[in-house]
C-alpha cells in the first residue's frame, strides 16, 4: 500500500499518463513549443542478483532464512561468548572439550563456502550481462553512423540492424532494405515460433530517415508480446502533422532476429529492463525443495524438544537443589565464583549449558551430509550414459544439485510444444482427394509419383480423376502465403505447415516458383510454367480457422481456393462431398496429424466484382475494419467444392508419446503450454497421446467465446460454470475414482492466452465468482491441459497459479527456447532441453537434458531414487541423533541434573563425524530399493512417493518413536545392569565412563545395523562402509583408551573399553539390547511385506514395495505404530512378569 502511494508521489508524470512520447532521433518537433527530453531507463540488462555493495547483507539474509543456519550461528555464539561470560557453560564446553568448538565451527566454514560459491555464480551472471550490454550497435545520429555500446542506447535513438542480428531493444520499424517496406524476423527466442514473421514499416516514413521529424506516442511498457498500441505524428515542413497508427506489426522486439532482410532502421521505443523481453524475464530466485521445507519443520520440532529438555532439566536441577544437603554437600562444594553469581544468572547459564549439552540432537552434520549427498549424487545424472545424445554429443547437465529429490515429487509437468514435444519440422504425410487416400511413399515406384494405398473408401475406383488430382495440387500450390527464399532454394512462411504443403505438392510434380508482382508461377508436371494472377489473400485468423486466395488464371477464370480446419470448411461446402472425406480427416486427426481441408470455388466475373469492391471498401474502413472484412470473407467463402484433405505431421521428438504416457502413468499431470496456434498444438497433443480418442475436449478459447448475442465476458462465465459442473461437480468423488480409473471420462482442457488473461484479470470486475478458482479446479480435474497462444510471462503465470494452488503441488517445467525461460524459472524444477535454438533455456534451467525422452528416466528412476535416498537420510539423521542424546538426557535424572555428559567428549564429537556418517552417506548415494529397470517399467511406482510420502508427519513420528524406544532401551537396559556395577569376574566395579561406553557401543551398533536392515542394495561400498565403520569404532575405542594422551587433562577413557570387553556381562547386555532394539523394525518389515504381498501382488507383482500408500493394513506408517505399540506392550508385560518372578 505504502509503496504504491510512494510510487504515485515520486513516479512523476510518467506514471500518471498511460503513454510515453518519443522524439525520433531526438529531434525537437515544431508542434511542441518546449522540447523536454523525456527520461527513460537506459538499455542495460541486469540479470545478476547482487551488487558489490549489497552482496553480503542480502546474501546473509537469505542464508539465515534457513532456520538451521541461524541456529548454528546462535549455538556458535553461545559457545564462544559463554566462555567469557559465565562459568557453568564454559565448564560444560570444556567437558565437551576442544572438539566441540571445532564442530560448531564447521557449519560456519560451510556457510562461508556457500556464500562464496553464490558470489561466484553471480559474478558469472555479471559477466554474461556485460557481454550483452557491451555489444556494439550502429546508431544513426545526424546522418552519421556511430558505433555504440548496446547499453548506451536511449529511447528515441535510430538504430540500424543487419541481417541475422538480434534487435538490441524494442524498435519501431522505420525503414527496410526490402522494396515493399517489410522485413522478416524470427521470434524463436521469445515465443518459440521459429517461422518468419513479417513486419511492416510505418507508411510515409520510408523515404528518408535522416530528415524524419516525428514523435511517437505509445503505451507504457507491458509484457504482452502481441500487443502494442501507438501512433506517430509526422511533421513535414509547416504542414499539418500526419497521423499514423502503430500496431504490433510495426514493433520489432528485443531478442528477435532479423531474417531475409539486409538491414533495417528503427527507432528505439522501449529499452533495457522495459523491453518486452526483459519484462517477460523473471529473476532467478533460490529454489528450495520440499525436503528442505520438511527438514525445517522437523528441525523446529527438534528445537522444541531441545528447549523443553533443557527447561525440564533446569527446573529439575533447581527442584533437586532445593532439598537440604543436595545443592552443595560437603564433598562437592561450589567454587567461590559460582557462589557469588546471581541466582537467576546461574539459572540462565544452566539453561544454556543444557542447550549445549543436548545440542547434538540437532543434526548439524546432517546439513553437511545432505549437501554432500546432493553434490555427489548429482554426478550420477551427468554420468548417466542413457542421457547421452550422440547427435549433439552431450549428456545431461546439472546446474543445481539442490533439487535432485524434487525430481521424485513432481505432480505437474508443464511442457513447451515447439522443440520440446515436437521437432518443429512439418512433414507432408498423405492427402486424400475425393475420398481416395494418397500416401507418399517413394516417388520412383510409380510414374506419376502417386502411390495409392488402400483407403477404406476406394473399393471400386483406385484413383480420383486426373483432373481432380491436378486441381487439388494446384490448390496446394496457390493457396498459401509462402515466399521463395532468394539465396537458397527454400521457402519462408509464417507457418511451417504451409511449407510442408507446398513441398508436398512439389513431390507430386507441382512446384511453386514464386510470387512476382502479383503473379504466382507454378511449374506443373509437364514442366510448363503456369501463371496465376493473385487477386486477393483472405488471411488466416484463428476465429475463421481458414485462409483463401482468389486467383485468376491465364484463361481468365477466377478461382477461389480455400484451405482450413475441417470444422470451418465442412459447413461451407456442398454436403454430399463431405462424408467421403470426413472419415479420412478424423482418422488422420486421431493419428496426431494436422489436417487441413482444401476447397475451391469458381467465381463469375459478377461475383468477383462484388467481392473485390467489398474487400476494398472494408480495407479502407477506419472503424470496425476487422468486422467488416470478416463479413466479406464469410460471404465469399460459401458454397465451395471440397476437393480433398491433407495430413501434415509435426514430427514428434523421439519417444515423446511414450514419455508422456509414462509420466501420466506416474500420476503426473501434463500441461502443454505453447505460444503456437491451437490447431497445431491440439494435433500434437493427440500425437503425444495426451488427448486420446475418448477424451472429451473442453475448449475455452477466443473461438468458443464468439457466441452470437452474448458478451464475451458472459460467455466466459457460462462456459466456466458449465465446464466446472462437468468436471468437478459431476465427477465421482476422488476415492471411487481411483477404483474406476479406467471407466471414468477423461477430460482435456484447451485454453488460449487471450482467454486466460480474461480469466486471470476477472477478479476485479466480477467479485461473485472467482474465475481463477473455477478455472483452476477445472484444470486440476482434467487429465491434460493445453494452453496455446501463451506469452512467456503467461506461461509463468500458469505455473505460478498451479504452484500456489491448494496443496502446493510440485511443478516441473520443460522447455528449450528463451520463451520458456520464465516458466522454467518459475516452476519448482526447471528442465532445459538442449535444443538447436539457443542455450538460454539450458542456462536458466536446473537440469538440462538432450532430449525430451530423457525426462522419463530423470523423473521415474533418478528422481524416485534421490527422493527415497534423501528422505531416508533425513529421517535417519534425526532418529540417530535422538537416540544418541536421549540417554544423555535421561542420565541427567541420575546425576542431579548437573549437565554431566554420559559419553566421553571424543565419542560425542566422533559419533556424527566418523562412526555413523559414512554408512548413511553410502546408503544415500547407492541405495536402489527398487532396481532402475523396474522403476522405468512400472511408472505407477512413482505415485508411491508422491506428496512427500516419506517425510510427512506420520513417518517422522514413526522414526521419532523408534528413536525414543531405542534411547530408552539403551539407557535403561544398562541402568538395570548397573544396579550392581561389579560386572567383572574379579569383582571390580565399573564407573560412569564405562556406563557411557556401554551405552555408546550399543548405540553405534544398533544405529548402524538399523541402516543395514534398511539397505536393500548392498554394493561392496556399502559392505565396506558399514562393517568398516563398526570396525573403526572398535579400533578407535581401543586406541583412544589405550594411550595416556598428554594433551588431555583427564584420562577418562583409559582402558575403559578394553575392560568393558573383558566383562562377559557387558557383552551379553550389548547383544541382547541390540537385538531388542532391532526387533520391532524386523517385525515391522516382515509383517508389512507379508501383508503387502497379499494385497498388492496383483498390481505390482514380485516387487517389494518399500513405500506403499495403497489401501492395506500395514502400508501406512501410522498403522505400523500399532505394531510398534503392541510390541512395546508385550515387551514390558514380559519383562515385568519375569522381574516379579
Amino acid at each position: 500500500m505504502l509503496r504504491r502511494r510512494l510510487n504515485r508521489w515520486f513516479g512523476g508524470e510518467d506514471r500518471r499518463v498511460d503513454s510515453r512520447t518519443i522524439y525520433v532521433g531526438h529531434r525537437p518537433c515544431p508542434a511542441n513549443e518546449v522540447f523536454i527530453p523525456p527520461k527513460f531507463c537506459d538499455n542495460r540488462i541486469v540479470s545478476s542478483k547482487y551488487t558489490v555493495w549489497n552482496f553480503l547483507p542480502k546474501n546473509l539474509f537469505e542464508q539465515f532464512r534457513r532456520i538451521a543456519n541461524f541456529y548454528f550461528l546462535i549455538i556458535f555464539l553461545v559457545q564462544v561468548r559463554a566462555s567469557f561470560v559465565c562459568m557453568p557453560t564454559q565448564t560444560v564446553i570444556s567437558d565437551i572439550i576442544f572438539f566441540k568448538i571445532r564442530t560448531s565451527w564447521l557449519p560456519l566454514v560451510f556457510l562461508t563456502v556457500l556464500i562464496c560459491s553464490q558470489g561466484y555464480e553471480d559474478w558469472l551472471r555479471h559477466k554474461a550481462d556485460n557481454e550483452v550490454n557491451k555489444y556494439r550497435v550502429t546508431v544513426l545520429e545526424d546522418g552519421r553512423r556511430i558505433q555504440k555500446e548496446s547499453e548506451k542506447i536511449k529511447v528515441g535513438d535510430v538504430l540500424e540492424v543487419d541481417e541475422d542480428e538480434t534487435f538490441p531493444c524494442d524498435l519501431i520499424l522505420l525503414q527496410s532494405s526490402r522494396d515493399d517496406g517489410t522485413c522478416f524476423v524470427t521470434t524463436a527466442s521469445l515465443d518459440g515460433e521459429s517461422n518468419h514473421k513479417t513486419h511492416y514499416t510505418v507508411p510515409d516514413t520510408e523515404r528518408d530517415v535522416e530528415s524524419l521529424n516525428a514523435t511517437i506516442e505509445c503505451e507504457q511498457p507491458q509484457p504482452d508480446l502481441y500487443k502494442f498500441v501507438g501512433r506517430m505524428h509526422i511533421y513535414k515542413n509547416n504542414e499539418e502533422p500526419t497521423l499514423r497508427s502503430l500496431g504490433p506489426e510495426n514493433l520489432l522486439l528485443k531478442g528477435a532476429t532479423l531474417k531475409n532482410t539486409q538491414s533495417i532502421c528503427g527507432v528505439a521505443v522501449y529499452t533495457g529492463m522495459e523491453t518486452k523481453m526483459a519484462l517477460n524475464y523473471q529473476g532467478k530466485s533460490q529454489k528450495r525443495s520440499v525436503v528442505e521445507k520438511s527438514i525445517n519443520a522437523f528441525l523446529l520440532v527438534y528445537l522444541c524438544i531441545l528447549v523443553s529438555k533443557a527447561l525440564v532439566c533446569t527446573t529439575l536441577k533447581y527442584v533437586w537443589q532445593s532439598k537440604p544437603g543436595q545443592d552443595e554437600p560437603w564433598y562437592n562444594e561450589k567454587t567461590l565464583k559460582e557462589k557469588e553469581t546471581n541466582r537467576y544468572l546461574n539459572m540462565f547459564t544452566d539453561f544454556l549449558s543444557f542447550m549445549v549439552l543436548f545440542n547434538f540432537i540437532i543434526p548439524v552434520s546432517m546439513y553437511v551430509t545432505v549437501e554432500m549427498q546432493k553434490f555427489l549424487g548429482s554426478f550420477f545424472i551427468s554420468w548417466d550414459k542413457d542421457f547421452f545424445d550422440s547427435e549433439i554429443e552431450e549428456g545431461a547437465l546439472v546446474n543445481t544439485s539442490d533439487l535432485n529429490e524434487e525430481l521424485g515429487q513432481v505432480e505437474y509437468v508443464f511442457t513447451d510444444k515447439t522443440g520440446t514435444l515436437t521437432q518443429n519440422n512439418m512433414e507432408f504425410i498423405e492427402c486424400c482427394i475425393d475420398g481416395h487416400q494418397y500416401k507418399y511413399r517413394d516417388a520412383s515406384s510409380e510414374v506419376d509419383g502417386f502411390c495409392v494405398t488402400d483407403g477404406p473408401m476406394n473399393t471400386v475406383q483406385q484413383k480420383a480423376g486426373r483432373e481432380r488430382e491436378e486441381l487439388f495440387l494446384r490448390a496446394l500450390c496457390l493457396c498459401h502465403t509462402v515466399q521463395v527464399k532468394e539465396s537458397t532454394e527454400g521457402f519462408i512462411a509464417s507457418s511451417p505447415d504451409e511449407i510442408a504443403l507446398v513441398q508436398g505438392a512439389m513431390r507430386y510434380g507441382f512446384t511453386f516458383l514464386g510470387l512476382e508482382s502479383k503473379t504466382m508461377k507454378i511449374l506443373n508436371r509437364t514442366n510448363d510454367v503456369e501463371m496465376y494472377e493473385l487477386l486477393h489473400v483472405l488471411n488466416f485468423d484463428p476465429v475463421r480457422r481458414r485462409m483463401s486466395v482468389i486467383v485468376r488464371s491465364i484463361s481468365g477464370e477466377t478461382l477461389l481456393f480455400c484451405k482450413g480446419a475441417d470444422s470451418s470448411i465442412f459447413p461451407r461446402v456442398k454436403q454430399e462431398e463431405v462424408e467421403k472425406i470426413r472419415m479420412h480427416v478424423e482418422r488422420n486427426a486421431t493419428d496426431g496429424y494436422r489436417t487441413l481441408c482444401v476447397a475451391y470455388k469458381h467465381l463469375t466475373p459478377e461475383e468477383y466484382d462484388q467481392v473485390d469492391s467489398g474487400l476494398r471498401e472494408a480495407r479502407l474502413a477506419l472503424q470496425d475494419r476487422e468486422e467488416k472484412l470478416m463479413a466479406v470473407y464469410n460471404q465469399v467463402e460459401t458454397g465451395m467444392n471440397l476437393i480433398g484433405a491433407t495430413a501434415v505431421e509435426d514430427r514428434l521428438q523421439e519417444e515423446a508419446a511414450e514419455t508422456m504416457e509414462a509420466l501420466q502413468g506416474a500420476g503426473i499431470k501434463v500441461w502443454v503450454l505453447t505460444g503456437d496456434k491451437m490447431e497445431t498444438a491440439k494435433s500434437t497433443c493427440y500425437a503425444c497421446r495426451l488427448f486420446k480418442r475418448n477424451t472429451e475436449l473442453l475448449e475455452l478459447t477466443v473461438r468458443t467465446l464468439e457466441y452470437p448475442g452474448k458478451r464475451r465476458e458472459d460467455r466466459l462465465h457460462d462456459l466456466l460454470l458449465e465446464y466446472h459442473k462437468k468436471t468437478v461437480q459431476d465427477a465421482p468423488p476422488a476415492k471411487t475414482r481411483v477404483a474406476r480409473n479406467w471407466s471414468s471420462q477423461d477430460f482435456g482442457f484447451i485454453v488460449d492466452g487471450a482467454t486466460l488473461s480474461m480469466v486471470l484479470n476477472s477478479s476485479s470486475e466480477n467479485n461473485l465468482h472467482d474465475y481463477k478458482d473455477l478455472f483452476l479446479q477445472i484444470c486440476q480435474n482434467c487429465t491434460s491441459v493445453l494452453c496455446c497462444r501463451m506469452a512467456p510471462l503467461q506461461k509463468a503465470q500458469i505455473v505460478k497459479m498451479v504452484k500456489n494452488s491448494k496443496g502446493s503441488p510440485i511443478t516441473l517445467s520443460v522447455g528449450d527456447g528463451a520463451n520458456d525461460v520464465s516458466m522454467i524459472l518459475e516452476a519448482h524444477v526447471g528442465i532445459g532441453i538442449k535444443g538447436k535454438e539457443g542455450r538460454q533455456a539450458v542456462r536458466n534451467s536446473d537440469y538440462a537434458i538432450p532430449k525430451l525422452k530423457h525426462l522419463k528416466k530423470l523423473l521415474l528412476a533418478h528422481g524416485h531414487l534421490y527422493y527415497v535416498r534423501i528422505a531416508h537420510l533425513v529421517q535417519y539423521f534425526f532418529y540417530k541423533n535422538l537416540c544418541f542424546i536421549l540417554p544423555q538426557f535421561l542420565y541427567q535424572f541420575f546425576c542431579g541434573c548437573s549437565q554431566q555428559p554420559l559419553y566421553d567428549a571424543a565419542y560425542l564429537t566422533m559419533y556424527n563425524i566418523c562412526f555413523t556418517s559414512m554408512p548413511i552417506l553410502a546408503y544415500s548415494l547407492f541405495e536402489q530399493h527398487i532396481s532402475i529397470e523396474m522403476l522405468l517399467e512400472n511408472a505407477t511406482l512413482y505415485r508411491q512417493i508422491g506428496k512427500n510420502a516419506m517425510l510427512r508427519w506420520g513417518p517422522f513420528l514413526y522414526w521419532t518413536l523408534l528413536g525414543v524406544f531405542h534411547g530408552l532401551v539403551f539407557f535403561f537396559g544398562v541402568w538395570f545392569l548397573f544396579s550392581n556395577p561389579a560386572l567383572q569376574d574379579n569383582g571390580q566395579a565399573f564407573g560412569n565412563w564405562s556406563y557411557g561406553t556401554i551405552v555408546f557401543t550399543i548405540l553405534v551398533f544398533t544405529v548402524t545395523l538399523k541402516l543395514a536392515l534398511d539397505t536393500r542394495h548392498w554394493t561392496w561400498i556399502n559392505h565396506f562402509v558399514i562393517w568398516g565403520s563398526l570396525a573403526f569404532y572398535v579400533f578407535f575405542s581401543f586406541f583412544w583408551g589405550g594411550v595416556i594422551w598428554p594433551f588431555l587433562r583427564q584420562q577418562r577413557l583409559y582402558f575403559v573399553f578394553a575392560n568393558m570387553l573383558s566383562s562377559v556381562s557387558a557383552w551379553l547386555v550389548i547383544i541382547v539390547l541390540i537385538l531388542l532394539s532391532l526387533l520391532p523394525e524386523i517385525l515391522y518389515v516382515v509383517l508389512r511385506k507379508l501383508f503387502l504381498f497379499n494385497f498388492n501382488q496383483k498390481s505390482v507383482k514380485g516387487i517389494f514395495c518399500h513405500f506403499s500408500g495403497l489401501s492395506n493394513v500395514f502400508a501406512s506408517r501410522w498403522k505400523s505404530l500399532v505394531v510398534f505399540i503392541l510390541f512395546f506392550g508385550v515387551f514390558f508385560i514380559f519383562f515385568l512378569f519375569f522381574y516379579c518372578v
Partner: protein
Amino acid sequence: MMASSYNAKEEDGHHSGASSGTGVSKNKKPDNTAFKQQRLPAWQPILTAGSVLPAFFVIGLIFIPIGIGLYVTSNNIKEFEIDYTGVSSDSPCYNCAKNFTWNTTEPCVCTVNFTLHQPFESNVFMYYGLSNFYQNHRRYVKSRDDRQLNGDLSALTDPSKECEPYRKSGDVSIAPCGAIANSLFNDTLVLYYVDSNNSISEIPLVKKGIAWWTDKHVKFRNPAGNGNLTLAFKDTAKPVNWAKPVYELDPLDPENNGFINEDFIVWMRTAALPTFRKLYRIIQKKSGATPTLPNGNYMLNITYNYPVLSFDGRKRLILSTISWMGGKNPFLGIAYITVGSICFCLGVVLLIIHHKYDNRNTSADIPS
C-alpha cells in the same frame, strides 16, 4: 536368515573396460562403468517371513537357555548386605553418626554384629556401598587432575583449575587435588568371625587387586622423589578433609602408598549412579574344604570417619561371591529370557500368519 540374491549385472562389469576406451575418444560421452551407471553388482537381501522365521526360533532357542543359565548363576551368588549408617537410635553407629565432627583426633568406633545363615564358598568380595552420593555430579566428576595423579611434577605443584575449590590450601597446592580425592572414603572396616564358643578371630582382608591393573600401574603414579614419598610430596598440602597426607595412606607398603594406593584408585573411578558399591577388600578362599566365610556370627568393626547423614546418604557393607558374570544381578537373565520368549512367540505368530497367507500364493516370496 535372509533370502538373498546376487544380482550382478554382468554385461556392465565386463564391458566397462572396453567401452571406457571408446569413451575417451568422444570426450564428453559418460564412461560406461558399473559405478557411474549405478550398476554395481549388489546383494539384495529381502527380509521375508520365510527367512526371518527360523531366525526368530533360533534366537528364542538360544536366548532362553542362556537366560535361564544367567538367572541360575545370578541366584547362586551369595550376597550379604548390611546398612551401618546409624540413622535409627538403636543402631550401633547412631552415636558416631550423630556426633560427627571433622576435627576430632579421637576416631569414633562402632561395632555391628550380624549373622550369615549360609556359608560363602570361594573368594568373597567385600564392598562398601554408598547411596544418594552423587559421584557422577558434573562438578564432582571433573574435579580431578589426572596429570597430577600420573606423577607429573608441574601438575603436582600447579594443579588443574578444574580442582577448584579443592585446588590450593592457602598458597600450597593440594595433592591429590579436587573434590573426588578430597572426599575419599575413609571408614576402616574390620571383619571378625565369632566362633560358636565366642572366641573372636579377625578375618584376613586382602587389599591387593581391587583396582584395575592399568590404573594401578599406568594411570596412577607417584611423583618421582628418589623413593621417598614424603620428600616427593613436600611442597604440597593434604586435602582439606583428610586426616593424614597422601604419603601416609599405607605407610607399611610402599607399593600401595601415595597415589597408587588401591583404595584411593578405586575411589577415583567415579561411579555411574548415585547408589553404588566399590570394592573394598577381598577375602581369599582358604585352602581345603572349609568355606571362606562359614555361617555363623560376625562382627564388623567400623572406624566411623565418613559422614553421610548431612546429605541423607547411606553406607552399607556388602559381602558377595562372584561368578563369571560378575556380581549378583538378575537383570541379564530376565532380559535374555524375555527377549528369547518374545522371539519365540513372534516366531509362532509369524508362522501362523505366514501359513495363512502363504497358502494363497506361494510364489509371493520370490524376489524379482
